[in-house]
């Protein structure tokens, strides 16, 4: 059975308004399959009945669960490898030369279950130039469920098999029953916080490095442009922005320029744009 037109339209508009995620017509099956568990939990016989009920009652916590259920949280350790090599080989050493406070600030802006911010911290620890430095790491996401997982720092065997070198596993994790728990030395370095990228950012200060990876792909052009513009406002003038392998600033927000660094999608604010950030 497939979700009805009205239910699909309601969910699509809700998700669009709350997260900017665009669910094109044709994604009915995705919506249906993601909402079946929620419909069951709340005792509804079908997704249509569940959505109809939600549309009349508009219970905020259920609305939120629906939005979260439609996010895609796929992630992995050292995803795509290249960005982390670039951090270790060029971005971090350059920061170590130019920052006098022995502290750098990093923001993982759609951190999902935490693999990304933890991979960044492990990379910092593997960068000799940063030894003795403090990495102030903020990790944010829209999804409470993902943030809870990230804070807890426990990962299944299947998850640690994905992209994590064995030496890194034994160095930074401990066995916790069937799962693996990331070391408190790392979890305590990250501040996890809920942040919806489509809403105005709370005061965040300036970041030396921002990871905004594999999230812009879900948004329409105007939303991408707006987010990239607001990210400029929280970047140190010489800060580096990392996007996903399939994402770019070109034609979206041309105040950014690509930094030649391997295959990575790394960007910085163009020199002439640095002083006049709106």
């Amino acid at each position, binding site marked *: 059975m497939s979700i009805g037109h009205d239910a699909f339209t309601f969910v699509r508009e809700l998700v669009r308004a709350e997260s900017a995620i665009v669910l094109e017509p044709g994604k009915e099956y995705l919506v249906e399959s993601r909402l079946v568990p929620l419909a069951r939990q709340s005792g509804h016989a079908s997704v249509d009945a569940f959505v109809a009920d939600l549309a009349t009652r508009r219970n905020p916590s259920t609305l939120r669960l629906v939005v979260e259920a439609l996010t895609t949280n796929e992630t*992995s350790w050292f995803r795509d*490898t290249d960005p982390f090599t670039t951090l270790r080989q060029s971005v971090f050493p350059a920061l170590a030369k130019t920052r006098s406070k022995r502290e750098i600030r990093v923001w993982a802006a759609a951190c999902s279950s935490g693999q990304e911010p933890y991979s960044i911290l492990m990379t910092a620890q593997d960068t000799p130039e940063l030894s003795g430095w403090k990495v102030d790491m903020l990790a944010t996401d829209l999804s409470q469920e993902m943030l809870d997982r990230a804070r807890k720092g426990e990962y299944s*065997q*299947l998850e*640690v*098999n*994905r*992209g994590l*070198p*064995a*030496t890194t*596993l*034994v160095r930074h*994790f*401990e*066995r916790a029953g069937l799962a693996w728990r990331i070391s408190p030395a790392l979890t305590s370095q990250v501040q996890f916080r809920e942040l919806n990228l489509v809403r105005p950012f709370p005061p965040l200060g300036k970041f030396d490095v921002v990871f905004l990876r594999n999230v812009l792909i879900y948004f329409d052009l105007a939303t991408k442009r707006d987010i990239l513009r607001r990210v400029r406002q929280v970047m140190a003038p010489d800060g580096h922005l990392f996007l996903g392998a399939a994402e770019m600033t070109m034609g979206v927000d041309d105040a950014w320029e690509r930094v030649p660094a391997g295959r990575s999608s790394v960007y910085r604010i163009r020199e002439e744009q640095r002083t006049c950030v709106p």
Partner: protein
Amino acid sequence: MRALIVDDSRAMRRIVGRILVDAGFEILEAGDGQEALDVLAAHDGDLPVLACVDWNMPVMDGLTFITEVRKRAAWRAITLMMVTTESEQDRIVRALAAGAHEYLIKPFTGDALVEKLDLLGLTPTTVGDLV
């Protein structure tokens, strides 16, 4: 590019073999550590670049095999990956100390194996970049 699969389970050798063939490898197989040493000795001029090694096997186990391989300078270039159901932390530590470069815990997905190859610089694209 050759890879040696050392596992006493023929089914497991076939599963790993299929993934490695897709990744561009030619496959050599052995059912235990001793047989694997013999295979390496027989291919001295044309060694595999990678060995995927099970831990628990009759005759000679994977840890002993890895230790033996690491003793020979001529075999230094072989990348060794333990592929096993043994998932205790101290096992991983022991395998790495013996000279394993990577450790993959069974069961795993094809993607996970390919990602390990990536980490080791052994995927077709990464190897291609070096040439």
